[in-house]
């Protein structure tokens, strides 16, 4: 299963990640294409920069658990949840009216802190933030994208 369900996946402003992906998934023969998105709150379910959407997801997961009476959903992955909800959105778009989902992949971010560019807030505390996160965007339908802005930014 794909991270956020079936769709077209993009890295958010990360040419280096796109190159790594091309190197390892397309035998080193690839091009990186840049497309401009409008990340509006009514079309993008944004689990990166929209706190309201993060809360919304937690609420939906809780409602699912309560209404089903099943403990299984408490262990669901994002991929499973979005597969579930998008099944219903086909017949009732109100249930999930979004056209794309945006999320951060934090795998090994602490281990590879130089890649992710972890930076402390202050010298005397261990609190830190990440300034080069791996952000993925899953677009459900490529016809929704404004492909007129498409341009090749790198060829191997």
């Amino acid at each position, binding site marked *: 299963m794909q991270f956020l369900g079936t769709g077209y996946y993009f890295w958010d402003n990360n040419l280096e990640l796109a190159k790594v992906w091309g190197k390892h998934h397309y035998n080193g023969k690839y091009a990186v294409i840049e497309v401009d998105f409008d990340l509006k709150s009514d079309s993008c379910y944004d689990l990166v920069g929209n706190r309201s959407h993060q809360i919304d997801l937690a609420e939906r997961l809780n*409602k699912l658990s309560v209404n089903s009476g099943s403990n299984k959903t408490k262990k*669901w992955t994002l991929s*499973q949840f979005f597969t579930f*909800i998008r099944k*219903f959105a086909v017949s009732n778009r*109100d249930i999930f009216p979004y056209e794309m989902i945006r999320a951060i992949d934090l*795998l090994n971010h602490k281990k*590879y802190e130089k890649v992710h560019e972890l930076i402390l807030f202050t010298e005397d505390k261990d609190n830190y933030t990440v300034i080069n996160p791996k952000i993925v965007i899953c677009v459900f339908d490529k016809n929704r994208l404004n492909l007129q802005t498409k341009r090749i930014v790198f060829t191997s």
Partner: protein
Amino acid sequence: MDDIQKRSLEAFEEMLKSMDKKELNDLIEEISSMDTAGEPTVAEYFNQIEEQFAHFYFSENMDDDCSKNNMDHFQSFQNILNTKYDNVFVQESTKINFNILLNQQDANGIFDTSTKSKKSMLKNSLAA
């Protein structure tokens, strides 16, 4: 919470409440089994491996402090491989250089499984 989000959340809850409980739980069961039932497909498994490669690629230029992490990382990688295949192994050649040795690769370094469901290119060497 904007109007669209509020309406969507309400629609979601209404849908859950209106659904037949058995139908809902059957669907939950079906989706739950998608990630966890049985062995991953070959395609899924190689996606996992390629993810590991991507991370190693990132770490190639890291300093010595990070090489310990590489070794730990590759030991984990080897352990994963061992659970699936007998004839694929990772060998540490130097502190930060590793060779991937595959018994089933062709002259171009293309690794193919016996199921032929997916060809996956693995590099012979990821030496920094």
